[in-house]
């Protein structure tokens, strides 16, 4: 088992390297650089920046160097724990990134748990009661959730939350708690806010997982081992949970690999609408202004988050399924 985990962790290194290259290329793709953004901003303010000053700025930010030099300077810094400097915020990137990435990870994790908690029982119910009213109702509910645009649902829920429950609009905390230290009251306040993005992101993801679970379980329900277990005299509910669900849950768990990326990219829109202090809005802003190091750090860390999620699901699979563990 330990060997398996070590092997998977080592396997992540080339993936991370590839992600860093891709992230860097994506950031460099649009024409211009951060200095062009500065020039544009200055022009809006009625100011002008002459060529000499631009060259000085370019040199200061290091954006005039050849791309390879820039990439290795960036990645070399990261290996030493230095994520570079945000041009726009005039702060080291690491100061900006950690808290927001923490919020993003937490929100993605809660949402994933929420999706699993909803999709698993509904999927099982739908499979066992195939073509029943409940099956159709659950499917309908799931697809409506998938088809409703996230931003719309976010606005509606925000309205409900404000008008009916009197919570503050947007953000993850009420204003009085934003700067406060963690306490039970702050956690409760957090819970009052987090359900909106979790629900918005969750409803988009449950439909697919309900269908995955339903289809997996339908394949397993007619397997001979289920009949053999029934012939032993097992009660039906225990039988279904202990045997076919145990086997059918494998593909369900490995969906982490594609659920996490959709959650994180969905988070970008939802967080912008709800004004959440997560990575999404800041990443969007950094990309728009070509704040290279900040955007790069976010992209890299989001990639790492997905890899870690996949790793965790692989480990979970190995624990659950002896066929994976032993071969």
């Amino acid at each position, binding site marked *: 088992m330990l060997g398996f985990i070590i092997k998977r962790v080592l396997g992540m290194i080339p993936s991370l390297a590839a992600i860093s290259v891709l992230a860097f290329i994506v950031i460099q793709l649009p024409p211009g650089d951060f200095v062009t953004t500065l020039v544009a901003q200055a022009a809006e303010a009625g100011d002008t920046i002459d060529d000499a000053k631009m060259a000085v700025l370019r040199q200061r930010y290091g954006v005039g160097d050849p791309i390879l030099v820039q990439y290795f300077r960036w990645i070399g810094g990261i290996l030493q724990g230095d994520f570079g400097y945000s041009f726009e915020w005039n702060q080291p990137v690491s100061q900006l990134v950690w808290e927001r990435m923490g919020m993003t990870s937490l929100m993605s994790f809660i949402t994933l748990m929420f999706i699993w908690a909803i999709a698993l029982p509904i999927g099982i119910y739908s499979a066992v009661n195939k073509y029943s009213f409940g099956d159709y109702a659950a499917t309908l509910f799931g697809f409506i959730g998938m088809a409703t645009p996230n931003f719309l649902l976010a606005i509606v829920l925000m309205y409900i939350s404000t008008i009916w429950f009197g919570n503050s609009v947007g953000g993850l905390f009420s204003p009085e708690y934003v700067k406060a230290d963690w306490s039970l009251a702050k956690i409760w306040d957090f819970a009052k806010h987090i359900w909106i993005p979790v629900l918005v992101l969750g409803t988009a993801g449950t439909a697919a997982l309900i269908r995955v679970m339903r289809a997996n379980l339908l394949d397993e329900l007619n397997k001979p081992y289920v009949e053999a277990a029934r*012939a032993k*005299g*097992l009660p039906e509910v225990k039988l279904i949970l202990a045997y076919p669900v145990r086997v059918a849950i494998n593909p369900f768990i490995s969906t982490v690999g594609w659920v996490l990326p959709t959650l994180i990219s969905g988070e970008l829109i939802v967080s912008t609408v709800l004004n959440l202090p997560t990575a999404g809005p800041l990443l969007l802003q950094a990309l728009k202004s070509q704040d290279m190091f900040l955007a790069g750090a976010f992209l890299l860390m989001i990639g790492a988050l997905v890899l870690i999620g996949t790793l965790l699901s692989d480990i979970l699979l190995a624990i659950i*399924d002896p066929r994976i563990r032993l071969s």
Partner: protein
Amino acid sequence: MNNRKKPILQVKNLSVDFPIHKQTIKAVQDVSFDLYAGETLCVVGESGSGKSVTARAILQLIVNPGKIMQGELLFESLEGAVDIAQLDKKGKQIRKIRGNEIAMIFQEPMTSLSPVHTIGHQLVEAILLHNDISKAEAKSQAAELLRRVKIPNPEQALNSYSFEFSGGMRQRAMIAMALSCKPKVLIADEPTTALDVTTQAEILDLIAELQKDEEMAVLFITHDMGVVAQIADRVMVMYRGQKIEDGLVQQVLEQPKEAYTKALLNSVLKLETPPMHAKPDAKPKTIIDVKDLKLQFSSGGGLFKKPTLVVKAIDGVNLTINEGERLGIVGESGSGKTTLGRSLLGIYPPNEGVINYTRKTGEIIQIEKANKATLKSIYGEMRMIFQDPHSSLNPRMTIFETIAEPLRANTDMSMAQMRDRVQFLLEKVGMPSEVANRYPHAFSGGQRQRICIARAIALNPRVIIADEPTSALDVSLRHQVLDLMLNLQKEFGIAYIFISHDISVVRYFCDRVAVMEKGKIVEIGDVAQICDAPQHPYTQKLISSVPRPDLKYRKKPLLQTTMAYGDV
């Protein structure tokens, strides 16, 4: 010798329907029989005869949309007589009977055990369901059960997963599970069909031994008349959901009353009497000559790691196939017979050795070195027939397209020529030519295998490699397909390489037999010599394990009269 009068289970006028779409399939119609303690009642019939449905009805295990329409299933349970037909399928009462008083073992030991639970977990669960004992006690009972079904290292086996066991071991574990609560009735649904003959013999012995110890009634479902002759006390014959006849085994096998039973037995016995085998030519022309062929499969290796597991699938095989002969290759699963057949076609490249193929023109080609184009031209002369006619035909191609495909790929026939050729081929395999425009799903297994044969002979091949071509067919169809292959040989002079695990089929069909064990040919010779006077110990074991449908080979004593049960 046996004077218990009351049957332990009485099935009276049982009918089971499966309403599918708008029509109703009457799977079981008005079937009645009794089962007594200590006896073995064999239920025989072809696929679709309703024998499995009958067995499942006894445990209320019929899957949706099947339904018991009428009849009684009177069972002498520990808590008095009950009519199982009246019990709720998911209720407590039937669950108390399942596994506890009536246990069942299934056909597929590969898939009847959960792949994600240990053998021990599944056994202990079965014991705890019906016994009020501690988990530790249940565990030691489980180990004891595994010892009784002769699984080596039972304590260790408890922690093993089913996929770590061979088919025979899994079926032993299934039997251990079925016996865990000392049931009064054991229902065995084709428990040995998926196993090798030697394993089958061991499992049958095991069931008989345990049955004797526990005075258990066994309802044994099978389509194999050989098994019936060896183990049955009484026999019930089913056909299309109805009981055709029943009686003592010697009555049914030797003096069948009904025409269907006679026909069924005839088709079995026909395989016992081989047709005239052609005398080998004094100077046979060799078509395929295999010299010292070796082939290994390895697994578990990585980019920088040596493979951890090397399987010698073929380990030094020498073999010649002559023009117009029928060579059988027999062996248990895993003996390498299928691999050998495929490597003759160049599908698996061998590690060592030579496969020389002599073409019609006399040109000799080394198959293991041949390039794709050469192989393709040889495939017109060497064809293959597969085991499962249900999956070896493309469901989206019409019969015409299927049979014409090799013609299209290898010849430049026009459409009209192909139409004529397909019509001719269909006629040859005994199918009406109107079927050409239909799709495979419209045909039964036997008909599909005929279509596969038509496809195989489309290019006038010289050699056909047939991999278990009759294993998936009902016994009444087997000799028909074999006779068809024999007739085609007479007409077209085809040589057959006939791969099979079924000795009776090989005895019927082949001139020469090669016996394979662990990738080696241990014995090769004339069919009569191999089957009647085998020399190698492995061949002897293989031949003696085959249950013969003839009571004179039976070891178990026969019951003399049904009077012993107190009824007439």
